């Protein structure tokens, strides 16, 4: 699984952190930071949830 994050699009909602805290974090202003661009497959559900709830469509997941 390959995850990409477009920080320019991010609106700092933090929803990715709620969904998958070991894959996403936020900087001091709330902009998302990708901690793990290739998370283990058992994280797939949470990462997909993160991509689905991201209001800015800033997260892309590839198998």
């Amino acid at each position, binding site marked *: 699984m390959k995850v990409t994050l477009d920080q320019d*699009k991010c*609106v*700092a*909602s*933090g929803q990715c*952190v*709620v*969904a998958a*805290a070991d894959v996403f974090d*936020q900087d*001091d*202003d*709330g*902009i998302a930071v990708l901690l793990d661009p290739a998370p283990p497959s058992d994280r797939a559900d949470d990462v997909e*949830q993160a991509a*689905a*709830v991201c*209001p*800015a*469509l800033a997260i892309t997941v590839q198998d």
Partner: protein
Amino acid sequence: MTSTARPEEVHPSAAPEFPMSRAAACPFDPPPALKAEQEQGPLRKVRLWDGTTPWLVTRYAEQRTLLADPRISADVTRPGYPSPAPLRGTSFSFILMDDPEHARQRRMVTAPFTIRRVEALRPAVQKIVDGLIDEMLSGPARTDLVQAFALPVPSLVICELLGVPYGDHDFFQVNSKTLISRSAPPEARAAAHADLIGYLDELMGDKIAGPADDLLSGLGTRVEAGELSRREAAEMGVLLLIAGHETTANMIALGTLALLEHPDQLALLRDTGDAKVVSGAVEELLRYLNITHGGRRRVALEDIEIAGEVIRAGEGIIVPNDIGNRDPEVFPDPDRLDLRRDARRHVAFGFGVHQCVGQPLARMELQVVYSTLYRRIPTLRLDTALEQLSFKHDGSVYGVHELPVAW
């Protein structure tokens, strides 16, 4: 599927009026007429107070697609923008701007709403909630939950966060009520807006003179650095103050009413010690109640093809999240309150770049409230008949005016 006239062929006088009214018998459900439009198709035409006929987006998939589309504008001053009321008395903060200016200003206020900062506030919110419940329990065993609890919780929290003296809450609560009321005359709304701006401007002056560790002081620093005008900073302050109050307060009161009407669901919250169960329940209550019922308003910047229609450049678009959250394609049996369902994809906070900036804070406050109130007052009950309650049909935020409870 019945064949109906294409919405754009509908004569303006034949288009249904928006907003529609909720049915008195089902105070938690979106208006029946709105439901009927959803059944007709994903894109409909409606008629507004000024005779214009913008598009109404009724289904979840199209709602999310459009709200995330950069070809739509939130700029209230653009021709074609489907304004909910005459423009006088409107607050012109970043929620009514487009990127890049919207993003620039929004990023100035996101710092206190990161998940980490919000979690750090949880013990303080728990203390506020417990303190208010202690007060309720020390008095007579009946009260109006709105005044005693639902309003003070978010009010105390947002005042603390912004650095606004809580002692002034009567002043800004009265004015913010007028500002968001659709039935208030435009002059009254303009006056309320001017009073709030004046108040925030003065406070901003104090913060610039003596900064503290709060959001308004942070904005004051930006004003000093020339990144923001003082007027813009005051507009942001008004927005956050109002948004921090009305929405969460109504979610607390209306949510409690819904739970009292669904005792089996209330028991789930009362009897659990599991934070996951509580956060799931909060998401479902957000989906089910939809206290913002005026719809997100936008105007198309270019022709947009969607769901077999073409929204032309300059045409208005209204996205009512209440009906999106009741889309049976996404949430099976959508009119059932089911705290165990996975409702996290709801659009109660909107979607796209304008999604509510304070939602992590709102979620945390609601988690603390719903996991504490019924556990500490297990005998809580409605102290009047449901039919006696008066609901806020005329504002942009829905809820109950008063919620008499006893225990």
